[in-house]
Every structure is written in structure tokens, then in C-alpha cells.
């Protein structure tokens, strides 16, 4: 048992002491954050120490860690349920208002780019899987798009249809999870339960198709790993018969909730010009009024043949970012319907050698994931491993706006804004 310093003797209930008890300097010290508070030495060793223990490295870091009058630091994370992973935010507060934010990344850094540069081309696909673990098919998709351009591989049409079909299913799963977690971060427990029902049905049917529930490792250079099977089709048919109705019901749970709408409307407004300057993509950019979606802006796969809309909104606040996701789920259901009606017959893999040694060259492949543009830039030097494998993750760019969006808001709105940007830390930290 650690010994604790002796407390002042207990007094009769309700009685105030005649004069404040002076602390003995050997046992107590003033708090860094609030000089009026005295802390036990033993406790203060475990308290959050806001100033980094090394000299400030940049102008911006020095500016952030200089405390103005009445300002204090608060640390959120890295282990915090509302940061969607291991994100750490150092907030500078004045009262309850946020003055400045410094996100600290890297708690989940695994060096995937380096690992990929030391694996062969087939192996890369399962290395990139755990990046965006909520929607891992899209990260595979970006990698195979880049490799297929590098090697001039033509993908069979049936494989393209299966890619779009499974991808759009996963987009719905990711968006329903986003909607549930956004509500959960605002204190609403119910929507996450319904979200997980939807997500679970989708990952179960994808498990029937690919063999895994989360890290699918399904796309291959030149096609997909396996053809559609009976269990997948029967589960999908089951789900499609009520998907549209169910998603409307789930959306109504939040759209008509006054607390939810009042806590998100007008909070964290990201306007069009700022979003473009920050390189934000995906639903967050479309909520700011820019109709930029790689599926239409730079079409790949069979998307040019499909009929769907790109929903946009002009408000750019957290509510708009949520409503964009709801609209995208509707569009994805339309796409799945068209895929099922037009699915061609044929092979699902192109014929490729076992050992891939692409000609020296460079290729950039990008696809539209649920969070925005996922890109992969590959350089080949003629060997069986990529010479350079660069992964561009949309969450990284979306999270970068947090230091711009947060200041001026209340501490409680941190959760709204971060959750509405939909970061996945597995992708951000690579």
C-alpha cells in the first residue's frame, strides 16, 4: 500500500474551517493548470503533464504550448471511446471554449508502406487490409487499381461487377456504422444497436463470399478471389427485400430526433473553399457543396455504366455530413440492384503468372471509399516487390481540418465534430 500524506482532520458536517489549511510544502504543490488548486505530490505524478518534455520543435508547436491568460490544457485520448481509435487530442481551453487543438498521431503506426515495399505484389493486398478496417475492401481496391495500371491487366467484366457489388455493400455497412457511432458520441445509445444489426447482416454475407468478416483479402490483381456462391446470394436477396425500408426507418430514428439535430446543426461548419484547400474528400467535401466523387469525377470499373446520383449539400455542418451518408446509402442500394440485374457470366480472374515482375514504371490508382478518395501510388523497378508503395488515406486529410473546425466551439462539441468527420485511425496512422 502506498502511504498517503495525512489529510486535515475531519470536521463536524457543515462547519466551515476558521481559516484555510495551509499546505505543508513538502507534501503538496500548486497545480500547473490552475494555481488555486493544491495537489498532493503523489497524485500530481500521475496527472496529465501538458508541456512536452522536449524543446519545442516548430513555431506552431511553440505557439500552441504557450498558455495565455486563464487558458489550460486538456488531454483527450489516446484511449478514449469517442476518438474512434487511438487518436490523442491536446486541447487548449479557455473556460469551456476551445482555443486551439493539437492532434497527436502515430499511436497505431505500423509502417505499412515499408512492409509493402518488402513484400511481393500479391502479398501487398493483405498487408493493406487492416488500414481502413471498417471498409477494408476499398483499400484493396485502390491497391489493385494501381497494380493493374502498372501491369496493363484487363479485369473480366464479371469480376468488375462483383467488386462493385461487394464494395457497395461494404459502403452501406460502413455508413450505417458511422451513423450509429455519431449518435453514440452524442449520448444516444439506440441507433448503434440498429446499425450493428444492418452491419452484421452485411458482414455475414460478405463472410459467406470471402471467408472473413472484417479483413477480407478478397480482391486480386486481375479479378477477385472467388465467384458468387449460393449462401451469399440467398442472404443478399433476403436483405435486399427489406433493406430500403429498414434504412429509412433507421434514418428516421435520428432525423426526427430534436436533440440530435440541435447538437449537430451549425456545428463545425466546413465551407467550400476551406474544404478544397484542406484536400478534404468524400462525404465531407460533398456536404460542403463540391460534387467530387471519384466514381463520377474519374470513373473506374463499371461505374460509368451505372445510374446513380452524387448527393451534395451546401451547409457543410455536422448535420449535413450525416445526411450525406444517409443519402449515399440510398444510392448504394440502387447500385446493388443494378449490379444484380446486369451481372454477366464469365471468369472472375484474368490469367496472370504466379510471379509478377512488372516493367519499370509508375502508376496511380484511386477509388472512392466511404470516407473519400483512397489512392495508391506504386513505383516498380522491375523486381517482384514494389519499389515505392504510397498509400493516401482520406481520413488523414479529413482529420487535418479538426484544428480549424474546433476553435470557438464548446468542449462537448469536440465529439460531434470529430465523429461527424468519420476518421478511422487505422488508416490515418498507417
Amino acid at each position, binding site marked *: 500500500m502506498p502511504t498517503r500524506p495525512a489529510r486535515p482532520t475531519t470536521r463536524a458536517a457543515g462547519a466551515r474551517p476558521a481559516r484555510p489549511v495551509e499546505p505543508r510544502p513538502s507534501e503538496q504543490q500548486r497545480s500547473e493548470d490552475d494555481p488555486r488548486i493544491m495537489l498532493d505530490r503523489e497524485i500530481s505524478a500521475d496527472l496529465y503533464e501538458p508541456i*512536452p518534455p*522536449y*524543446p519545442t*520543435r*516548430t*513555431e*506552431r*508547436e511553440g505557439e500552441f504550448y504557450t498558455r495565455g491568460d486563464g487558458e489550460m490544457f486538456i488531454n483527450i485520448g489516446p484511449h478514449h471511446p469517442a476518438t474512434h481509435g487511438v487518436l490523442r487530442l491536446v486541447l487548449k481551453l479557455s473556460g469551456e471554449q476551445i482555443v486551439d487543438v493539437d492532434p497527436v*498521431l*502515430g499511436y497505431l*503506426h505500423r*509502417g505499412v*508502406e*515499408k512492409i509493402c*515495399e*518488402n513484400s511481393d505484389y500479391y502479398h501487398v493486398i493483405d498487408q493493406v487490409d487492416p488500414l481502413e478496417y471498417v471498409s477494408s475492401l476499398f483499400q484493396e481496391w485502390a491497391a489493385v487499381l494501381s497494380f493493374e*495500371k502498372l501491369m496493363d491487366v484487363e479485369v473480366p467484366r464479371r469480376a468488375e461487377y462483383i467488386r462493385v457489388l461487394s464494395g457497395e455493400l461494404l459502403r452501406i455497412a460502413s455508413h450505417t456504422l458511422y451513423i450509429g457511432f455519431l449518435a453514440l458520441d452524442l449520448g444516444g445509445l439506440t441507433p448503434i444497436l440498429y446499425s450493428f444489426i444492418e452491419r452484421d447482416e452485411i458482414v455475414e454475407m460478405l463472410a459467406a463470399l470471402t471467408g472473413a468478416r472484417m479483413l477480407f483479402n478478397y480482391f486480386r490483381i486481375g479479378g477477385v478471389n472467388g465467384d458468387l456462391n449460393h449462401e451469399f446470394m440467398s442472404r443478399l436477396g433476403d436483405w435486399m427485400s427489406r433493406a430500403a425500408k429498414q434504412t429509412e426507418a433507421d434514418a428516421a430514428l435520428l432525423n426526427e430526433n430534436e436533440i440530435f439535430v440541435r447538437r449537430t446543426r451549425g456545428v463545425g461548419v466546413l465551407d467550400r473553399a*476551406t474544404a*478544397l*484547400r*484542406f*484536400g*478534404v*474528400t468524400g462525404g465531407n467535401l460533398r456536404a460542403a457543396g463540391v460534387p*467530387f466523387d471519384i466514381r463520377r*469525377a*474519374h470513373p473506374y470499373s463499371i461505374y460509368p455504366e451505372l445510374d446513380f446520383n452524387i448527393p451534395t449539400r451546401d451547409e457543410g455542418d455536422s448535420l449535413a455530413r450525416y445526411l450525406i451518408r444517409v443519402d449515399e446509402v440510398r444510392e448504394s442500394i440502387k447500385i446493388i440492384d443494378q449490379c444484380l440485374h446486369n451481372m454477366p457470366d464469365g471468369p472472375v480472374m484474368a490469367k496472370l503468372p504466379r510471379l509478377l515482375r512488372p516493367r*519499370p*514504371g*509508375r*502508376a*496511380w490508382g*484511386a477509388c472512392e471509399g466511404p470516407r473519400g*478518395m483512397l*489512392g495508391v*501510388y506504386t*513505383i516498380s*523497378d*522491375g523486381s517482384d516487390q514494389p*519499389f*515505392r508503395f*504510397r498509400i*493516401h488515406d482520406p481520413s*488523414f*486529410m479529413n482529420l*487535418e481540418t479538426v484544428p*480549424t473546425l474546433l476553435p470557438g466551439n464548446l468542449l462537448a462539441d469536440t465529439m460531434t465534430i470529430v465523429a461527424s468527420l468519420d476518421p478511422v485511425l487505422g488508416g490515418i*496512422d*498507417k
Partner: protein
Amino acid sequence: MDRNLKRRLEARLDAQIQGPIRQRHDQTEIRIKPGDAPDVLRTVHDSVDLRFEILADLAGVDTGAEMQVVYHLWSETSPDWLRIIVDGISRDDPRCPSATFLWTGAEWLEREAYDMFGIIFEGNRDLRRIFMPPDYTSFPLRKDFLLPDDAARSPGEGVRHIERPYGPAVVADDPAAGVRRAPAS
């Protein structure tokens, strides 16, 4: 391939483009010198017939002989991706002008390129490590940073510490040892 884009780029940037404009699949590629980077980026961003407003990616590359900074840009005026390769950056003292004056979002991308390659972006006011811890002393994606278990290529040396914390960079004894090099192209 967008032949029209090639003509427009030649008309606007003839003096700055090094070598031929390469086009393959849906990508148009130009090479420039580090000093020209701010001018070229501003031209492709602002010209009415180019308007590459979306910064899709900023990547550092270590070719084994030199460093590169690679920009991927998107514009609604062209069906192609525009790739701008800033090459000829020295490996011993890699420096490149920052793109933050056009895209604020480049700040974190440049921090990442600095963290992984040690490229100093002049003009970025927050150039510190982003993924690796602040007292880390090496640049992991450089080609002379060898994975200890990479039996295929490593001469068994493992991590080479080329940067002291808070001090000037230490030049490695033999910077070319065991370095995988990109083909000349």
C-alpha cells in the same frame, strides 16, 4: 490519355518542364526542378484552362540516388490525373519548397514526408514528426533504412541512425551500401 492537356501544359509551362511530358493510361506526368515548384503549382492551380484545384496526394520518394516529391492533382478540365514529380533533390540535404501556400492540407502530408524521408519543406511552419515519436532518430522509408529481418536485401546492418535528435544530421559512413536504386527513367 488527354492529348489536349499535354498541349496546354506545354503552352503554359514550357520553360519549367524538364524532359518530355509522359502519358500512360489516365495519367499525365511532368518533371520539374525544386526551385520551380511554387510557380508551377500556382500556374496549374490558377490558370483558367488547367484549374487543378484538388490535391489528391503528396508523396516523398527516395530513388536511392536522389529524393523526389510527387504531387497528384485532379481537375474537372481534364480526364487525366496530373502527376508533378519534383526531382533532383539531394539525398544529403533534401530541401523542397512547401505547397502550403496553396493547399493548407499539404501541411500534414509534408510532415509525413519529412517524418519518413527527412525532406525539409521550406515554408511549412509545423514541420515536425507526425507518426514517429519526437525523439526518434531515423527516417524509416529511406532506402538505406533496412528492415532487420529483410533477409533478401539487407547486408545485416539493420537500422542506420542518420539523424541526431535536435542536432545536425550525421552523414552515414557509406550512404550507398545496400541501397536499392530505382531504374533511370
